[in-house]
């Protein structure tokens, strides 16, 4: 694929992520922040997010194994996870987090666990797609990746 095609591909891929509701405006903000001083800003942020969220997911999982469930703690962890998700614009994941917190508030363990599974799925999906996206963007050349003239 030549450069132009790659770039187009990148743009389309990105667009589809938005269309599928996986990403929101925050992601664009991140791209806007990327500049010469931080040419890989978006990716760095996303990596940071993965690291932090992995830890949070693990905390939640452990907490979900407890019996009885400590909803307050779960809610706390999820609050953090939601915050982290919001940082990269993970729209769908964030929505599931909100749902999870609702269940926690209602003391619904079943609903919480179910929702958590969903969260993990969405999280994995987004991660995968973003990785594809970043790779593509790299191929297309730095200028084309999520970078807008600022």
């Amino acid at each position, binding site marked *: 694929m030549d450069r132009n095609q790659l770039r187009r591909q990148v743009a389309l891929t990105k667009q589809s992520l938005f269309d599928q509701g996986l990403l929101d405006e*925050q992601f664009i903000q991140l791209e806007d*922040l990327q500049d010469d001083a931080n040419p890989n*800003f978006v990716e760095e942020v996303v990596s940071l997010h993965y690291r932090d969220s992995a830890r949070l997911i693990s905390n939640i999982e452990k907490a979900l194994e407890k019996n009885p469930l400590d909803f307050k703690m779960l809610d*706390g962890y999820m609050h953090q996870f939601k*915050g982290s998700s*919001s*940082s990269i614009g993970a729209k769908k994941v964030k929505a599931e987090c909100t749902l999870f917190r609702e269940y926690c508030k209602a003391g619904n363990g079943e609903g919480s666990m179910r929702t958590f599974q969903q969260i993990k799925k969405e999280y994995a999906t987004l991660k995968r797609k973003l990785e594809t996206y970043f790779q593509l963007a790299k191929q297309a050349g730095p200028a084309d990746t999520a970078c807008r003239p600022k």
Partner: protein
Amino acid sequence: MMENNGFSSPRNDSFPAGLRVLVVDDDPTWLKILEKMLKKCSYEVTTCGLARDALNLLRERKGGYDIVISDVYMPDMDGFKLLELVGLEMDLPVIMMSVDGETSRVMKGVQHGACDYLLKPIRMKELRNIWQHVFRKKIHEVRDIEILEGNESFQMTRNGSDQYEDGHVLCGEDLTSINKRKHFESKHDEKDTGDSISTKKARVVWSVDLHQKFVKAVNQIGFDTTSLPSFDGAMTGSVCLAEVGPKKILDMMNVPWLTRENVASHLQKYRLYLSRLQKENDFKNPAGGIKQSDSPLRDSAGSFGSQNSINLQHNDVSNGSYIFSGSSLVVHNGDPRSHDSDRKRLVSTPVEEPKRTLTVNVPNPRIPRSSQMEFGQPLAPPQSEVDFGALDSTFPTKYPWCGIQLKKEHNPLHLNDEFSHLPLPGQKQLTQADYPQPAPAISSAPSSTPSHNEYRSNVNHARSTAIAVDSSPIQTKTDVANHQAVEPNSKSTPSLENQGFNMNSITEFESSRKNINLGMLPFTTLEEDLQVCWVPGDCYMNLGLQNIEVLEYFDPGLITDVPVNLNDGLRFDYEFYDPTEYSLIDQSLFIA
């Protein structure tokens, strides 16, 4: 923009560029993003992943930051607590942020004094404008200084070398003119969120007594978060509040009718005053303060009425800053309307009977946050509020006056007999029990923490129990008179120390305390006499409200039950309140 209003860094010319922002968030991703965003705004950014670290930084570098942005939910410390502390100790504008935009949370932020509340994800444009909060604060300070200075000059002439004893009352016209000006100005600036509580705002007359309480409180805690009136509007996104800091003081003071605004404005003035006096004092004998402080206390100990406010006086010259007692007190013109005016007007009430003109300014009825929270009516989860519970165990303080009973009256706070003899020229007489010499509660940052805690708890506790909290906090504060940390250029600090504030006037405090406990009436309109009944006796100030007779006077709406849960507020990880070491109020407070 205006002239250098305290920005210590040389960035005034290109303001807001170079604004020094401290960002606190446990989320590393957001920290990185915010850092980048703020840098793009040309701000100077410092990031912290822990609230604790942030506090240390703030304390170590007093005056090193202009504004703080903090997340609400952090593992090591509740963001609201941090907010309170920062407001109290450093009196910096604090912006809260969270992914949670629930109204109750936002409201809580406002109540704790946040000048804004941002929802994550945060946009660049939201950050671009944060400088307005810094600017606003400066403006208010300038105004306060003017008022203060205006009052001071009046005082100076009158006071001379007088004993504290009487609070000086500014000439009606002096005050009036000043007040008018302030009123006018403040009207437009004041971010008053509407008084739901009461519409009438009496003017606050900062009598010597009241001032003493104030100083005690300040010494004890440092800074209190401001309590904001109950907020009616839906808070969706940003809330902007002008002040932070005074709330704690308000709580500690436990003066029901006093509003946060009153305290905030007074606080600013006080600081300015201190720094001004500091300069002046340098030329005067520095040692004076100490002895003075002693005397007043003693005096005051017994006689609330007779002495009053003048006790402060001992602050003597050397202590310029503290001399609120006579000279510094400015009479507040009562301007029921403007918060500013209320706040700014300091009243020096003559301690002497004949002169007393204590006007109690009953700040607007709106229920200051403090009242709600402190008084035991936690507006929001008391978490960040003073944790009375904690206080309970931690600080048993003996208060001679304990057992103050506050009558639950909506209005008048009846001063007890001691005070009653004070002439009230048609005004509410709110005499603070002898004001123990105003301890220059400038406490170094580190120590302030505990004091804050206690203060807060005390305050809250007091509030609900109507016990003059100030006693406890003040004690500590006085002890530590010279603590603290004053910001690098704070002139007041040095003076304070020189002044010899007698921090050990605690005993005196106690006695004065007795008198001071006007009780924490919630904001009852102080139109009438404040009625404070207190029951002298040994009192253990357990913030657990054990000995406190809860004030009835509180407006039920405000304080349904003294929330003992205030405890949480104090729960920083600060050690327990150690009466021997009251946190010194951060000097920054006083440093204008």
